[in-house]
């Protein structure tokens, strides 16, 4: 059946089964392929989008459950000053290895900084622990978040 959802500020109508997860609507119906599939059950965070600003695993979110909530994806996050700043920090720090997890990382980081503009290491751990990076770019993800927050990027957890 048809569902109309607000994605990156644009209302889009799709005719799909109500149990189809948002991830697959985005990727295979709306051709927004930035959100990634990694596990399908909420364990990796590669599919993270914002639902009214909250980081949400789109692989677990049926299209019928979205209603009027506003969806923002990696394709739209650069529209906000914060999102742009985070993308810039990611480029400055050269975070990326394979890059497959990074949409999820950036969306998780954007949600963190929206709530906690000056996060400490524990805040970063808590907000980012759900988003796996198989390549191990964690030191640079941490640095890039701090950079986007205007903090010193030095890792001071262990002298």
């Amino acid at each position, binding site marked *: 059946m048809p569902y109309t959802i607000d994605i990156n500020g644009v209302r889009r109508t799709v005719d799909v089964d109500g149990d189809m997860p948002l991830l697959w609507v985005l990727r295979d119906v709306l051709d927004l392929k930035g959100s990634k599939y990694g596990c399908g059950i909420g364990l990796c965070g590669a599919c993270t989008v914002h639902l009214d600003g909250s980081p949400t695993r789109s692989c677990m979110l049926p299209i019928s459950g979205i209603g009027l909530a506003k969806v923002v994806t990696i394709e739209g996050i650069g529209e906000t000053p914060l999102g742009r700043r985070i993308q810039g920090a990611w480029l400055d720090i050269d975070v*990326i290895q394979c*890059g497959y997890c990074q949409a999820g990382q950036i969306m998780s980081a954007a949600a963190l900084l929206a709530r906690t503009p000056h996060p400490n290491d524990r805040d970063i751990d808590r907000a980012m622990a759900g988003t796996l990076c198989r390549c191990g770019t964690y030191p640079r993800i941490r640095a890039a978040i701090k950079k986007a927050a205007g903090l010193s990027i030095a890792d001071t957890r262990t002298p």
Partner: protein
Amino acid sequence: MTAPGRKAAVTSVQPRGAGASRRVFLTASAALGGGLLLHAVLPDLACAETAHRRLATARPLNAFIAIAPDGIVTIIAKNPEIGQGVKTMLPMLIAEELDVDWKDVRTEQADLDVAKYGRQFAGGSTATPLNWEPMRRVGAAGRAMLVAAAARIWGVAPSACSTAAGIVHHAASGRTLSYGVLVEKAALLPVPNLETVRLKDPKDFTIIGQPLPGVDNRSIVTGKPLFGIDVASPGMLYAVFEKCPVFGGKVGRANTDAIKRLSGVRDAFVVEGGNNPLGLVGGVAIVADSWWAASKARKQLQVTWDEGPTAEQSSAGFASAAQELAKRPPARWLRRDGDAAAAFARAARTIEAAYFYPFLAHLDLEPQNCTARVRAGKVEIWAPTQDPEGGARMVAATLRVPESNVLVHVTRVGGGFGRRLRNDYMAEAAWIARQVGRPVKLLWSRQDDIQHDFYRPAGFHFLKGGVKGDGTLVALTDHFVTFGHGDQVAASAGLGQTEFPAQFVDNLEFGMSLLPLGVPTGPLRAPGANALAFVFQSFLDELAHVAGKDPLAFHLALLGRRREPLNASAGSNPEHGLDAGRLRGVLELVAEKSGWTKRHLLPKGTGMGIASYFCHLGYFAEVVRATVVSSGTVKVDKVWVAGDIGSQIINPSNAENQVQGAVLDGIGEALGQAITIERGRVVEANFDTVPLLRIHQAPPVEVHFRITEHPPTGLGEPALPPVIPALCNAIFAATGKRIRSLPIDTTQLRRA
């Protein structure tokens, strides 16, 4: 995803001076759009004859460089980008010698065409050693042609001209011409001899040695489609493929008729499959309008499997069989030096220890996938692969079409780690696409990916070591129980005759016994080394403690017994053998950087461990500082790394990233990963039971390089192996408990 049409070759020039194996053959052609294309055929360095044959049969040529009139330079990156940074690094080598400004460079991923580009694979940390010189020579030849063109126009000697940032200068007259203006003329000039073309003095490098960001970074942070999973082809359908959970099993019956009636499903059918476990195996394909519809239909799939002969195998069974084998002498000897039994009898102290490590999966974050289109006997493939050539060969063999009918577009790859050196998913996609007569994107679920991998083989080592009264290691023996069939050791399950500390201990025996195995095995990042470093570097730490020595001093003393590079037998490259001096160098550097001598000041429950390893031509020593809390939980506080990969760090930003990633990968494996076999199948199915390291577990990793006078070598792998024993040795230092089995069992570390 398709190659740009302007790559067409127009003229070709015969290479000069045939004979040597380390040559790059180069021909030039004018591009249709007026750009300069340098077409190089890079012979496989180990296989010059093949290259000669290729040239003799005048196979198509290929382009590495194109320069537009506005000076924008397009450089082809020939190898798959799996996160190791080659799509940036290989073009850096060309751009350096071409002498252009990096900001004017665009890079483009090559499709598979080995006749044009030479070998195109991502594995074994080989991109740097194999391409360091050939790619620079490609750039230098291009520069020489541009200079020659300018010199002709001005009527001056080429030697009177210089270049910088894409411009040729004639100092005497103050004239300049840009590459973009010169390119048409340059393309018509003879190609210089690549053997003699001048390379820059490294002190003049402006690109090599700079910390340059990855060329795809901007596309990635904005969510552009780059990966295999993102490929779309008009009219494409989506497929899932269910295989027998037991390796080597076959389909008996399947309810495909019922599946075909489900919503969104276009087709469902049994694929017979062949006997190669790393090729097309038997299973059931479901093809639907969306991947979600195919996956949903799969939940109702009922298959009776013929599970085959290995359905009784289990990890527990392997462990007890290994214990039994250990009671007997090894089935074969790999090496016997001196007289170990006599040396043990004379030793002041001896210890015995059994070490174990489990099967591991690759866990690429992008699950295996492939998009295929088959039309009129021609196969077009889009795939994340580390070995497009092997994949094309497999697809051709599976579909019984000539290899020349298989075109492979290499996408960006969401993690390789060795998994995509085998291309079973390509064969599956091609088969399914041919059957349905439409383009098909096959995507494995995470469960498919974990349960239909080939695995880092488990292994059992039964070790004995003896030290003299003065602390010298006098004897060491290992009975390695591993896997294989008959006399044939399973893939990546072997032990080399020169495994350290072989050749450094007078009385040493390596023996081996094999267990039969139905589970496919193969390379995982730093194959062999990722397991053997744990075993030998941990056991040497045990011996150091038995000898009453500082582990660092113990290692340095052991290495001090040999000075010359080993394995430098006639004909083999001396760089390929362990150079004890380089290993000592990184050990000393990491000790200095980590404050090794001050470790007695650490609080109770915190310890430091050290380990080193040589593999993939790289030398790494690492120190881990870890804290074990009373619950037994291990917290890795920090890791210090010292590496020696030769004279030049090509891209320091990527180099640090790779090393940090390798170290964190090793920590993740040690802390939690294992694949369990029960009833012939893999038990684990997702990241809950095979945990990848998460950010709160990732310590700071401080990376140092020791620059030495050796050709630069690769980084994807050699930084991984030492971190695992360094961590286990740190846990021993913190708790007095020795980790002899992976993953680390924290319940053993609990303090009452």
